[in-house]
């Protein structure tokens, strides 16, 4: 489950950045709001750096009035394409996995008697 969680975290970050640019803690809090998605807050930063290295995310420093400078992350065009591709794949994948799991769950209910 941990690996699955790690695998989907990147697209989830891209999805949040698709709505608007966010700074680090903001992203962490939004992700943490979805139960079970984030194992530890710190993992977001190495992930953001990997996404940046892959050209899916950019960052810039913003100096807002009354606030200290913060680094805001934004999704790139390549990031949007990657996110769209993942959405399509995920929908199909989730349906497939869901179908198999539900089917097995149904079998599991009848297996004790049917197996004899």
């Amino acid at each position: 489950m941990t690996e699955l969680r790690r695998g989907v975290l990147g697209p989830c970050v891209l999805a949040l950045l698709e709505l608007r640019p966010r700074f680090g803690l903001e992203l962490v809090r939004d992700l943490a709001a979805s139960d079970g998605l984030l194992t530890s807050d710190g993992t977001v930063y190495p992930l953001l750096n990997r996404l940046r290295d892959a050209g899916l995310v950019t960052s810039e420093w913003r100096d807002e009035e009354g606030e200290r400078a913060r680094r805001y992350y934004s999704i790139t065009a390549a990031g949007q394409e990657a996110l769209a591709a993942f959405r399509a794949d995920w929908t199909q994948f989730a349906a497939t996995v869901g179908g198999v799991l539900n089917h097995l769950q149904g079998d599991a209910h009848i297996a004790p008697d049917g197996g004899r």
Partner: protein
Amino acid sequence: MGTRTQQRHPLIRGYLRELDLALAELPSEKAVELRQQITAHLQDAVPPRASADEVATILGRLGPPGELAADAAAGAAPQARTAVAVRRLGARLRRARWQSWVLAAIVALVLAAGAGRVIQFATAPLLQQGDTDGWVYARDYNREVDTQADEAQQTTVPIRSGQLQGLYLNVSNPSDFTETVLGLAPGSIPFGNAVVRVSEPNPEIDFGGAVANARYALPENVPPGQFRMVEVLWRSSLCLAKGAQVGIQQIQLRVRVGWLVKTDTIRLFAGFYLSGPSQGTCRSRP
């Protein structure tokens, strides 16, 4: 809004120190970037006047520094061992307390002072011949023949094979350090097994034997700027044919200067020579 005050919290300082150590495995630009991100995260996440429990909870949610670094390393290029070791050392130095720096500074000063002292010892001028030399025994002194050829002086006496013969010379210490004569360098005297001794201060010098009455010792110190008499004795063991000669133009002494033991080659004003034919007991030919 967070301030630098939060960064001074002991728990946060400890966490960042551990993070620095863990990030030593990463390329420096990656390590610096992640360090900045985590620092910024803490500035935003830790409220002013947060309690220790609150800080501990925030750090716990952030995850162990080792895991964070491992996560970051998964996407980074591998580092050369040396670079990693240097970065790790740098991280350790950065987390050292001020007492450690004071200790390191003291050690560095001591080492520098020691190195300076060694250089002084190594470059100090060694013992050199003074104004006096001659044969120790009157029997030789009375029979010496002084010659000069091509500006080279030589004093020659008949060899007395199987008997004690010897020479002395006055030496001075031109350095700023006490120099201690420890003995002769091996092979320095070709006439036979030789021993060297150094006189007490200001011996009475009388050519041809009186100097032998002075007190000699080994090892013996020669303080800066002072003179001492050096006596070299041997039992002549050479077999020389008529007209043959064997001699020395220099004497090599083992001398201790401070912490160093050096070989001091003292160039003699006049060469000391023994001439044949041998009389008495002789064992080897030169």
